[in-house]
C-alpha cells in the first residue's frame, strides 16, 4: 500500500535560527509589520510503500531519526496519510 508522508523538520526550541531572525529583521523594510518569531525549517514529502499505516509510520520515523534530521538540533513532525500524494513526481 502506498502512503504519503509529510515531514516538517524544525530547529529545536532554544536553538538559534539565524535565517529566521534575518528574515524577520528584513520584513519591516519590505512593508510587513507585526511579524514575529520567524523560524525556518524544512518540509519533506514522499510516498512510501508499506504493509499498513503503522509500518509506514515506523519507517518514516526511522528515516527522520537516522537521515533527515540531526536530533541534536532538530526535531520532526511526521504526518502519514493513505494514498499517494497528488502530483508527486520526481
Amino acid at each position, binding site marked *: 500500500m502506498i502512503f504519503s508522508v509529510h515531514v516538517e523538520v524544525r530547529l529545536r526550541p532554544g536553538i538559534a535560527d*539565524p*535565517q529566521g531572525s*534575518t*528574515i524577520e529583521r*528584513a520584513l519591516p*523594510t*519590505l512593508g510587513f509589520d507585526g511579524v514575529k518569531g520567524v523560524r*525556518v525549517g524544512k518540509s519533506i514529502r514522499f510516498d512510501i510503500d508499506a504493509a499498513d499505516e503503522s509500518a509506514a509510520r515506523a519507517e518514516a520515523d526511522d528515516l527522520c531519526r537516522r537521515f533527515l534530521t540531526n536530533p541534536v538540533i532538530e526535531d520532526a513532525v511526521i504526518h502519514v496519510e493513505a494514498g499517494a500524494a497528488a502530483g508527486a513526481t520526481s
Partner: protein
Amino acid sequence: MSRRVGVVVFPGSNCEQDMLEAMALVGAEPELLWHGDETTNGVDAVIIPGGFAHGDYLRPGAIARFSPVMAAVAEFAAAGGPVVGICNGFQVLTEAGLLPGALQKNRGLKFLCAPAELRVESTDSILTRSAEAGAVLQVPINHFEGNYTCDAETLAQLRDENRIVLRYVDNPNGSVDDIAGVCNAGRNVVGLMPHPERATSELLGSTDGLALLRSIVA
C-alpha cells in the same frame, strides 16, 4: 564611452573589492554603490558582484532585491544602461525580475569552486561584445545555487532571440541547456554565474575574463 562603473555592495557581498581591482585593469573607473542609497550615482555601468547578500537567507537575492539601490538599478536598466550581475548578482537580477528564470541548487548538491570552460554564444550583449563568437574562455565558477532553471516557453524565447550569451562546455551544475549567462531583451542587462574577475591575471591562472570585462566599458 562608459568608464565610470558602479559596483553595488549589499551587506554580505564579498566580491566587490575584487571587482574594483579587475575593472581598473580594463581601464574603468570603478566605485562602490551602497545598497541603502537610492541612486546609481551617475555611473555609466552597474555591476552587481558575487557574494552572499543578506546571507543568501531565504533564497539568494530574495532580500537584496528590495534594497533602495535596486529601484535605481531597475530604472537605469530600463533606460538602456549596462547592468551586469555576476554569480550572486545574477541571482539578484533574476529575483528582481530584470532577467528571466531562477537559479536553483547545483545538481550535485554541493558548492562548487572550480575552473570552467565557457563558450561565447552571442556577442550581441554588453558583456560579450568585445569577445569572439565561439571562443572558449577559462573562467572559474564559485557557487551553490547556479543551476539555471526556466520554463520551456522562456527557454524557447531565449534561444530564439539569441539571448543565451554564454554556455558551459561541460555543464557543472545542471543548468538547463548548459546556460552560464543570459541577457534581457534589450541586451543591456546580463547575468552569469562564472566569475570573470577571477580570470584577469596569468599569475592567478587565466586572463580570459578580461575580454568580458572590457566589453562592459567598450
